[in-house]
């Protein structure tokens, strides 16, 4: 029993040859869904015009440029020591020099070259692990779901930085081990988020209808489950990029990050904390962390307002 209005042809995209079955109504149903998906994607584009997002993106662009062009932009070598220790900010040393006479400006710029790729690496690997396990847990369900969720429970029993500290201390201080530690503590968040978005799709009518139309589990996963998890994953990954920068700096503040003389922002703050009168040694690396993390957080928030249905109603 269908009303003629619903049966009326929809102005959708051209027919997809992979559409299962020859039934024109089945084809139309799937088209309509894809069309709806396209509408949603279009609405995301408005995000880039918000003033706060423009500021955040420009900040990030600036930092990415700084990271890429560090050797050209930085006036001095980040690790070369000089006799001019604790020089206050001047035209020669914009951000002053530290306890070993190294130029703070050059070290802050080179710090971006260290922190940004590390943050991207952490998020990429944790996202991959979390997505895989989250998809398996949510889609297969039962025992797999139970096992994965109970494992994530263990990780959530610790505040993140405490567990990261324990892992990094056990493996020994180095950039590689800090990255491993931060991946280990952050994948469960992704797994949880992906799983819950999979579950919300799994119970939906349109997944049931596509199964009735003969769509196999692999295709359903690729076509219905994964695209619906992309939104939450993108939001989380953006926020986690900032979190990764923050946690890396915390680990190296604890002496568990990249080894000296690497220009890591957290370690620079730790070095500057020994003498308050030399404020510039820790002030500028701190501002660097603040601006990078803030930019990621603003971006993540704006994306969430658009992509997360709970926030889309304007509740956020």
């Amino acid at each position, binding site marked *: 029993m269908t009303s003629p209005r619903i049966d009326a042809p929809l102005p959708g995209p051209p027919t997809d040859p992979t559409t299962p079955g020859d039934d024109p109504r089945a084809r139309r149903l799937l088209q309509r869904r894809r069309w709806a998906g396209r509408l949603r994607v279009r609405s995301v584009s408005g995000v880039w015009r918000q003033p706060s997002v423009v500021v955040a993106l420009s900040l990030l662009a600036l930092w990415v440029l700084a990271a890429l062009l560090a050797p050209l932009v930085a006036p001095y070598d980040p690790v070369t020591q000089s006799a001019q220790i604790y020089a206050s900010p001047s035209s020669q040393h914009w951000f002053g020099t530290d306890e070993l006479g190294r130029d703070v400006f050059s070290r802050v710029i080179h710090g971006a070259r260290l922190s940004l790729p590390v943050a991207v690496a952490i998020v990429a690997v944790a996202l991959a692990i979390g997505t895989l396990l989250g998809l398996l847990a949510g889609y297969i369900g039962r025992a797999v779901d139970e096992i994965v969720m109970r494992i994530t429970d263990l990780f959530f029993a610790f505040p993140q930085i405490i567990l990261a500290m324990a892992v990094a201390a056990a493996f020994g201080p180095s950039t590689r081990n800090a990255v491993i530690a931060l991946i280990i503590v952050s994948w469960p968040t992704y797994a949880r988020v992906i799983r819950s978005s999979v579950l919300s799709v799994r119970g939906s009518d349109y997944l049931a209808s596509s199964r009735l139309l003969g769509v196999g589990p692999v295709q359903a996963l690729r076509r219905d489950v994964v695209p619906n998890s992309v939104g939450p994953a993108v939001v989380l990954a953006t926020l986690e990029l*900032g979190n990764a920068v923050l946690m890396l700096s915390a680990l190296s503040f604890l002496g568990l990050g990249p080894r000296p003389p690497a220009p890591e922002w957290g370690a620079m703050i730790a070095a*500057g904390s020994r003498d308050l009168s030399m404020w510039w040694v820790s002030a500028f690396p701190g501002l660097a962390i603040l601006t990078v993390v803030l930019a990621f957080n603003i971006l993540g928030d704006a994306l969430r307002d658009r992509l997360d249905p709970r*926030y889309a109603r304007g509740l956020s």
Partner: protein
Amino acid sequence: MRGRTGRPLRSRLFHAPLARLLLRRLATTVVLLFGVTVLTFTLIQLVPGDSMTASLSETALNDPSVVAAYRAKWGLDEPLITQYAIYVGNLLQGDLGVSRQTSRSVLGDLMTYVPATLEIAIPAMVLSVVLGTGIGLYAALRHGRRGDHVVRVGSLLGLSTPPFWLALVALYVFFYLLGVAPSGGRLSSWITPPPRVTGMITVDALLAGEWMIWWDAVQHLVLPVAVLTCLTVAALVRFVRSAMLEVLDQDYVRAARAKGLPTFTVVRRHVLRAGLVPVITVSGLAFASLLSGTVLVEQIFSWPGVGQYAFRAASGLDLPAVLGVSLFVAVVYTLVNLMVDLLYGVIDPRIRLS
């Protein structure tokens, strides 16, 4: 003894939804804590090289009798599963190993440092919950207007600031520039601490009737508590705000407003009651941010608490102490979450009866 319904009181209590909730949550908590020990045990097994070299100091490693005693105590020659059993057995007896740096038992160390941390954590937690709820509610009521934007920006700033840097900035401004705060520590150097009863100087000073000492201790508390509060409030405000917005959107709130009740009455009677339930859940989360905060902040304020102990253990690669602190924090955090869950059950009948 019989209760009103005629059934024996004991069985009535057992069947009471709250008691069932308590038992269920207690059981899951115990299982979770065992899982946590599996996690830390795995971590010890993954230590590159030998966990023994990471746990004993240089001098101890050169002493064959100490090494032999260590191997025997942790059962290092036994199969893994026995080693785990021995590990858990030692933990259950409160044996977290011996710190490489202080050469004392990690649990003993923790117990000497816990009161100092409690002294800043308790006021910070109370202030955070009160301020977080208040500010979050304010932002929700001013939704989309200037006050709301200011709160949003402020909380984003707080979430994006490295805690140790915020502590440093606070110390620079209020100690170095303005000279209104002490440089750190729990008491001024010329003051002898009051006799140790609770280990919390403010409490001990009151018990001893020493008002001068109390006032000095309070002055030393202000900055660390303020920094921890800022960080925790920033995290809390976002949750409170969206929880309150959700409540404000409900039909019964709209109805209460429509019949002309003053905002204050609507908030007190309808919004706060419903909105506080999620706030309680989130305070568990706020507690996590507070615990992490102490580890990153105490060192800056030379505050001799668990956080500073963790900082020194981490930077000195003192593995037994680091793992001891992490386990301790995990246990405390898990117990706090258990209490939050139970409180939630007390307040929200839906949870109790489900």
